[in-house]
């Protein structure tokens, strides 16, 4: 049985200064799924996600959070972004999986995990109501994403049977 690559690094960014938007552009359509790992330094504002530069109200998400003493769930629809963070503080990890991102037939679904031991552990499912292949991903903040934050985008290859 032969083996093929699984995670392949598409692009890695480490922010040298605080910025409101980080974009991965010209994403190749050759993988099955995408994985984006964000390791933020201390936040002063939330960060969120959008695709292909679409700023329309075409996003929705449902999240489940535990803050160490209680559990809660939230729903956002007809939003301009998919939310990723629980609060605007702490130093979260986000693990984001985008399934079948390059098909041009279906809306795109996203599964995320967010962990920040100061605030909460949680997960999220998001939807982008657009059939276009995803060729760019932007992480956007109403404030800034802090300096030192690392973002790594991987492509997932289909394995051999």
């Amino acid at each position: 049985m032969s083996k093929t690559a699984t995670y392949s690094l598409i692009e890695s960014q480490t922010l040298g200064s605080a910025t409101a938007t980080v974009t991965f552009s010209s994403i190749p359509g050759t993988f099955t799924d995408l994985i984006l790992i964000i390791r933020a330094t201390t936040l002063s504002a939330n960060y969120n996600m959008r695709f292909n530069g679409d700023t329309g109200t075409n996003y929705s998400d449902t999240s489940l959070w535990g803050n160490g003493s209680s559990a809660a769930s939230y729903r956002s629809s007809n939003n301009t972004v998919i939310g990723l963070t629980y609060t605007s503080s702490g130093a979260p990890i986000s693990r984001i999986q985008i399934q079948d991102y390059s098909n041009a037939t279906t809306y795109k679904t996203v599964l995320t995990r967010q962990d920040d031991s100061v605030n909460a552990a949680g997960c999220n499912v998001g939807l982008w109501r657009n059939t276009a292949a995803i060729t760019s991903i932007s992480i956007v903040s109403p404030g800034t994403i802090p300096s030192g934050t690392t973002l790594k985008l991987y492509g997932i290859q289909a394995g051999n049977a």
Partner: protein
Amino acid sequence: MALQLYKIATVEVGSAGASSIAFTSIPSGYTDLKLVVSGRADGAFDWHQLYLELNGSTSISVRMLQGSGSAAASYNNSVGECGPIIGGSTATANTFGSAELYFPNYSSASNKSISVDGVSETNGTTIYQILSAGLYSSSSAISQITVKPKDASAVYRNFVQYSTATLYGIL
């Protein structure tokens, strides 16, 4: 493109059992680590808590979101307790809990964040699925990872035969 996910080591528990599973002398040449655990312990419970030690320290703060199949709850601790995600001797035979622990930037000089997904399993009405966020406040690179099972009476137990843990490095 080159393979970016590398297996560093796998530990499989033998017939004598093991009080812990440890990875030592972890190389620092990767960007992230991923540890996948398939575990069952010998305490007479359906599940055991997975306790994490990093570089020999249990000073790890954790916030946990837990679903039992009928209710959701959230807890916190500062001793590396990651959740009830290791099986026990009263769980359905041949059934092991599963967990994935993710350590981004594990060799950096800043504090280390940890993300954990896990589930205990048995053919019963209550199992636990957990999502946990951890923080190891240390500027030292993570060079040693140890996991231990502790039962519902807070007694450390042994992993049973065929429990496994595999450590991956991600570039």
